[in-house]
């Protein structure tokens, strides 16, 4: 439709945000030019709204209204506030990389433990060296990805060597310690051929933080014959906003397991653009939204089968309580040459309250004939007969519900291969259920 209405009050406010941020954004003149172009792309579209098809159910103009000024570079006090949050989020044994208020915090990270197979630099360093100009570029024309490129203050740039077999996960922890400010990071992960690695990404607030906005981007490219898991745990403050874009490219014969769980934020959206660019790869992109109060959680996945012979599976579960609103949009694209594609997507929503809402838009876009693709979608309440069965055996109602909900979300969680990590995620889901009681 006509997007010419993009110039609203919020559209103008963001240009002030950009202007005032320019002085402290890393990068040379060439980088500044790339940022200016990205910002122009954003300005043409403005904050996404319901008239843009991809954002139909997540109208950021109505839900968020404006982009907040960038958070200040964290001082010692902010870093010490972040320490607690890092402790709470850390997965036992993982090598931590911590970003506080959009800036890499080496003092909170396990740099020494990274080992020779991982090379790390920060986005800031890369941009200052003028080496990372293409870090800000993507083929996408999405407004939020462009805004991220314009405003990104820092991020991690990780490269994992060919053949690296990492038995311990790498965990990137994003901590916000601020209120009423935005946190914008952009990270790049390059995973070499034959590498085997688990990456965890956690989003969490420090105790005093609130009403902040996270506008994040992750560029993940994986070589051939690799085996990668990326587990994202989004547990932001209840009044925060988190819009994360993930741009993923997968090589040949690679196995990738993506998982996302949303348990926080007033408004959140994870938009994943995943391209299967090498033959014989297998993708699992699963997710769970656990929403309550007036939380709005959106998971949007575009899986692009660009080459023949790949398999993709998407399993998504939403549990929506109170006046929560869950959105799932999944699109499977099969390009003309991508014969022998096997793509399946299943999205299910469980509505626990009469005012809860779940919107599902599972799309198929298919240009090849020898394929097997499908999707399913359901929405409904807990099965009364199952509840009755459990209650007849003496379980209190809430417990019976919790048991059924656990089983419901379990289907999306169970594909996490690492036992410890899977238990950790189940624990987080249980914690959400506990709070319900």
């Amino acid at each position, binding site marked *: 439709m006509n997007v010419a209405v993009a110039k609203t009050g919020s559209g103008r406010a963001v240009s002030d945000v950009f202007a005032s941020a320019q002085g402290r954004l890393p990068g040379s003149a060439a980088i500044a030019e790339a940022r200016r172009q990205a910002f122009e792309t954003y300005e043409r579209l403005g904050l996404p709204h319901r008239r843009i098809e991809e954002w139909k159910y997540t109208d950021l103009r109505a839900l968020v209204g404006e982009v907040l000024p960038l958070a200040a570079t964290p001082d010692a006090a902010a870093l010490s506030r972040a320490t607690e949050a890092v402790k709470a989020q850390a997965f036992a044994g993982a090598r931590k990389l911590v970003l506080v208020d959009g800036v890499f915090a080496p003092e909170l990270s396990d740099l020494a433990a990274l080992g020779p197979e991982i090379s790390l630099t920060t986005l800031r360093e890369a941009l200052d060296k003028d080496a990372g100009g293409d870090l800000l570029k993507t083929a996408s024309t999405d407004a939020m990805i462009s805004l991220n490129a314009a405003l990104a203050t820092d991020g991690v740039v990780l490269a994992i060597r060919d053949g690296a077999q990492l038995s311990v996960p790498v965990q990137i922890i994003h901590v916000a310690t601020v209120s009423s400010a935005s946190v914008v990071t952009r990270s790049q992960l390059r995973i070499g051929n034959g590498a085997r690695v688990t990456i965890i990404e956690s989003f969490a607030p420090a105790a005093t933080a609130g009403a902040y906005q996270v506008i994040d981007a992750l560029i993940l490219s994986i070589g051939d014959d690799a085996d990668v898991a990326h587990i994202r745990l989004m547990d932001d403050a209840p009044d925060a906003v988190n819009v994360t874009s993930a741009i993923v490219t997968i090589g040949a014969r690679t196995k990738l397991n993506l998982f996302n769980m949303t348990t926080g934020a007033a408004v959140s959206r994870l938009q994943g653009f995943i391209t299967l660019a090498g033959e014989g790869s297998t993708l699992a992109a699963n997710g769970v939204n656990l929403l309550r109060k007036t939380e709005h959680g959106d998971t949007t996945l575009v899986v692009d089968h660009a080459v023949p012979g790949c398999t993709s599976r998407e399993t998504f579960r939403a549990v929506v309580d109170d006046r929560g609103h869950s959105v799932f949009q999944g699109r499977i694209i099969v390009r003309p040459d991508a014969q022998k594609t096997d793509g399946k997507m299943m999205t299910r929503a469980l509505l626990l309250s009469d005012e809860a809402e779940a919107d599902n838009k599972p799309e198929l876009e298919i240009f090849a004939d020898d394929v097997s693709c499908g999707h399913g*979608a359901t929405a*409904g309440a807990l099965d009364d007969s199952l509840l009755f069965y459990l209650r007849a055996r003496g379980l209190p109602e809430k417990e019976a519900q919790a048991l059924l909900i656990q089983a419901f979300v379990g289907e999306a969680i169970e594909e996490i291969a690492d036992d410890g990590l899977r238990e950790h995620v189940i624990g987080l889901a249980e914690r959400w259920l506990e709070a319900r009681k």
Partner: protein
Amino acid sequence: MPAVQETVDRVRRIDVDQYRYGFETLIDSEKAPKGLSEDIVKFISGKKNEPAWMLEWRLEAYRRWLTMREPTWARVDYPRIDYQDIYYYAAPKPKKSVSSLDEIDPEILKTYEKLGIPLREVAVLEGVEPKPSESDPPARKIAVDAVFDSVSVATTFKAELKKAGVIFMPISEAIREHPELVQKYLGSVVPTSDNFYATLNSAVFSDGSFVYVPPGVRCPMELSTYFRINERNTGQFERTLIIADKGSYVSYLEGCTAPQRDENQLHAAVVELVALDDAEIKYSTVQNWYPGNSEGVGGIYNFVTKRGDCRGANSKISWTQVETGSAITWKYPSCILRGDNSRGEFYSIAISNGFQQVDSGTKMIHLGRNTTSRIISKGIAAGKSQNTYRGLVTAHRKATGARNFTACDSLLIGDKCGAHTVPYIEAKNSSATFEHEATTSKISEDVLFYCVQRGLSQEEAVGLVVNGFVKDVLQQLPMEFAVEAQKLISISLEGSVG
């Protein structure tokens, strides 16, 4: 599993170049000047001897249309339409006022004969109906309203329907004879401001069918309209309004054809259905407008707004469509399930070949309590066509106990075409239960395994499953139409069951 060779061959055989209804009838016709303006709207209204309120209604729609823009969200691609380069009114030149079929231009009757439409009810009416033998059951009666370009040329069985109290007439006559009904219901389902094409239709519609079934009446026969575009450079804008009063039932069929030309012609119809308490409307379409030739030249642009309103409790509206024609189809027959316990159904087979583009589906809008809906959509894309299912299922907060089941399956034949599925599923209360499934693949392995295990060959098993599956949608059509539709499709739906 790719489509088996047999299926591919059958699709080739019904290739678009072999359009059977592509002939043109040479008759004198009367046309309004090209283009659209308030004067044209007044001209059409004047031609129809319409009352002032109707002209006002049209003009209001026209003025609103001027402020609207063509929708671009559908997955269809075509050059801009010049709305000033179309004749908005074309009618066969009347010899004098027509009072019986014999006075209709014999050329037109011949056209309908060629199309196989039984306009002549003579045998039945004059009592010379041959005695039905035991092996040959009596033919079922169908009342036909034939619309030729912009006007209705004949409506059959009027007398018999009148006996039952059913009103079935061209809408232009209904505006004059039953203004109270038309005024009450026209635009109440598809308002004049609804969308670009519906608004255009509201301004310039020239004819169409009007049906009113009084309370408690089960319409004694199938009602049918046959639409034919004949003139060059014309658009056809018909408007259909069907009202089923409390406890009544009506089944309505619609068929469409057009001559083979290398220009694109616009067809922008509006169909409104109103079902009051306990009433049921069954609306079936076999759409076979000229699809263009194998190079993608010519064909009808079919931009149609169809919507049914289950206004009363326990009412039911069922849409069945077999879409094989048109260069571009943009059509979403919908149900507004307002009455408690009302039910909406949508059964569709959409076949695209050559350069055809189909963007079709349905909307089920659950507003009342315990409303149910069912969507069965089968899309087949061949040649270089694009076939999209686009559907919305939504349950309002107050629509407690709403239920929907949706199954949409697609089959691709060849690697130059595309099949797409774009469903929107919105549940706004916890007691709504929605189930949706879509596949683009072969018949379920489990089902085949089951059959093969019991001694059937793979081919037999496929045949068995496909047969049962085709019935599923075709069964929804009245018998006469089912036969026609089957002939029209004449390809199996192998590989699309999931």
